[in-house]
């Protein structure tokens, strides 16, 4: 035990490259957390396990930046917004929604879905067509909106797998010089002479004709199904992994830091008190400490999570139960040393209360050690929580990195080669752990100068 002043620690710490790297990574993570909490609406993580929300996202698609690396351009999953034109001609009201897309990928889009939310009355005719880069116009679908007397709000979805679309496309059979065996998108986006991608600008047009008044488009989008999406891709349940990973950052920082602070504080006070009181109290307290030490932590954590609750806050408490023991042991032996110093004796003779001696004279001496052990014990807390989540015992209402990995394992991501589902959560866990290990090691080297040599 060496007593180092706070000022010394600060200057020493600023000299340590490792410690600064740790601080740098940590502040990056904190920044990400703050941005996540303030920018991304909380509804995204509350609905993480609600498949309804993710329905217009693609299934297990790679991150879209893969296109920068790979030779073949993988079609990106696109959610397009329309441009709306309205006109009136001879008593016929035309509302035209146009979705333009520049398509230059090396593979066909898997499908498309048109989602339309409209407000109208009376009956309306709907025509869907696509204008291809070579100028050919393919009429895909002619249908009508259900008749209604009064103003109604109507939700309508048109799928590319619709048999009517397939039938209509068959009328263009003579223009194409190959057999129509494949899906509709593989015809719409194809060259005429062979079944290969025709790159260029495509415009999807939805025209609605009404005789009394135009329809009002409240919300409409065209989902062009691709195999690449977003920053981090999506998983088997169509969830945007970027959102899960972002929400995982504040969560794991919260778990790691609160567990380590909690257990260090408890361990410190427990150990110091036990060492200070000595004799019987010490004996009893240390035996209790031994008992907890001898409990196998992970099996017990699992049992606790299964039988009591897997709420994230209780989990933090459970993790604390098993992590204060080592710190209590060390701080006890430290307080045994400090206890014999003369100023403590002096304070005792002056008649100061035990609690005051402990909190004013002994604990401050242990603070450098406490900070080092807080930093060092964070990674263990994070990996243990991730491990529990990985076993499927995590809190289902929060998307943590461990849970993303759990889902990946359940859906056999490794077997199917969904690397973007496995690699990022683990790297994030490791980076977070590393940041704290760096800080902890730098502090440790200052507190225990023996290791530096």
């Amino acid at each position, binding site marked *: 035990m060496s007593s180092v002043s706070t000022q010394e620690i600060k200057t020493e710490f600023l000299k340590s490259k490792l410690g600064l790297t740790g601080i740098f990574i940590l502040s990056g993570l904190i920044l990400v957390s703050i941005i996540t909490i303030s920018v991304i609406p909380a509804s995204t993580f509350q609905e993480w396990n609600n498949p309804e929300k993710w329905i217009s996202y693609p299934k297990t698609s790679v991150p879209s930046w893969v296109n920068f690396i790979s030779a073949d351009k993988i079609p990106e999953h696109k959610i397009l917004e329309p441009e709306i034109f309205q006109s009136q001609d001879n008593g016929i009201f035309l509302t035209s929604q146009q979705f333009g897309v520049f398509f230059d990928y090396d593979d066909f889009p898997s499908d498309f879905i048109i989602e339309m939310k409209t407000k109208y009355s009376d009956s309306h005719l709907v025509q869907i067509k696509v204008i291809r880069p070579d100028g050919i116009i393919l009429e895909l679908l002619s249908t009508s909106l259900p008749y209604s007397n009064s103003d109604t709000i109507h939700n309508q979805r048109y799928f590319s797998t619709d048999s009517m679309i397939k039938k209509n496309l068959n009328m263009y059979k003579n223009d194409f010089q190959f057999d129509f065996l494949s899906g509709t998108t593989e015809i719409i986006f194809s060259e005429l002479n062979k079944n290969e991608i025709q790159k260029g600008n495509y415009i999807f047009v939805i025209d609605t004709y009404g005789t009394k008044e135009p329809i009002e488009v409240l919300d409409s989008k065209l989902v062009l199904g691709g195999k690449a999406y977003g920053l981090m891709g999506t998983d088997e349940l169509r969830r945007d992994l970027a959102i899960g990973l972002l929400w995982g950052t504040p969560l794991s920082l919260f778990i790691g830091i609160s567990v380590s602070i909690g257990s260090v504080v408890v361990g410190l006070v427990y150990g110091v008190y036990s060492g200070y009181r000595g004799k019987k109290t010490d004996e009893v307290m240390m035996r209790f400490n*031994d*008992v907890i030490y*001898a*409990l*196998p*932590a*992970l*099996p*017990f954590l*699992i*049992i*606790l999570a*299964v*039988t*009591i609750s897997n709420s994230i806050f209780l989990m933090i408490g459970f993790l604390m139960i098993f992590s204060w023991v080592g710190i209590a042991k060390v701080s006890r032996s430290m307080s045994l040393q400090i206890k014999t110093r003369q100023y403590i004796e002096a304070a005792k003779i002056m008649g100061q209360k035990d609690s005051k001696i402990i909190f004013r004279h002994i604990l401050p001496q242990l603070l450098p050690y406490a900070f080092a052990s807080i930093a060092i014990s964070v*990674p263990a807390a994070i*990996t243990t929580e*991730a*491990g529990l989540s*990985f*076993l*499927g015992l995590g809190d289902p209402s929060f998307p943590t990195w461990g849970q993303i*990995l759990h889902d*990946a*394992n359940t859906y056999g*991501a*490794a*077997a199917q*080669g969904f*690397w973007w589902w*496995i*690699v990022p*959560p*683990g790297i994030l*866990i*490791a980076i977070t*752990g*590393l940041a704290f*290990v*760096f800080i902890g*090691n730098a502090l440790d080297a200052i507190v225990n100068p*023996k*290791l530096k*040599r």
Partner: protein
Amino acid sequence: MFGVLMITLLLTISLVGSNMDTILKQGVIYQVRAEITENTTIAQGFNNPEEFEKFVQQKIDERIETLGLDTPWYSPQRLGYTMYKILILDFGNATFLTSDSGSSNVGEIIFEKMPKTILLFTTATIIISIIGIVLGAASSNKIGSKTDRITSTFAVISSSFPVWWIGMLMIFVFAFVYQIFPARATPSIEPDDPGYILALLYHMALPVITIVLIGFGAWAYLVRNFMVGIMQEDFISAKKTIGISRKKIVYSHALRNAAPPIVTILALSLSGSLGGAIITEAVFDWPGMGRLYFEAISVMDLPVIIGSTYILTVLFLVSIFIADLLYGYFDPRVRTSS
């Protein structure tokens, strides 16, 4: 130590006790109903369904009483009985799980799985400690050298990756991208086949590589730190001045003095790895204690949970005990002082 064991048991039982009772009672109800419906003559003897229902309920109550389920699980006599049975290693029968040979006796299931866990983790730990000691000694030999730096960096980086995540990556890379190793660690051949041991070893390769990869860095770092401490001792300086070669000092004199803490930690890490085995085995599907434990928890097979927690705790305590003994053996100072 015995006290610790008992407390562990008590905790486990109290955590799962109430659930166990409900499950057992439901089992009894199901059993009684099945028996009565099979025997049609009983049902014919009743005039109305209420009376029949009453009769069934009475039968169920009788059965619950004879099994001693009417008193709650925390009543002293039931608790004592359960503890006694566990002490004599009679864990009863598993509710759902069976051993490979089809037995549902918990003791048999556990003792079938345990050798596999021990095989995997002992092999891995031995490899880790050999690599760790050699590397640690080498890097403490020249502090600040390239070896030292690489070892320290590797130790820090590798220890912050979760083993099971590396396991997933390894499965991804070596079982699917390059098909060198099997993805599932459970051999597909029957256990009595002569090629079984070979197949087992082959399936063991990937988990062992993963565990070693994650573990040896931290070990080397630990050994290095012990060695650095010892290299500063007076007797080493004395040996240096006599003119004994540095290599000899490091590998024979210093290493021998670093042995006690190293051996202690070896014993502790062996038992610690048994607990951590749960996740690793779940990833690799290794048919050991960890996976058994995980399966037992996912179907709430309480006798198995209690049994394996007990065995894990026993193993842990035994290894702490052995570590203590070894420490005394290697470091005679401890013996005389206590």
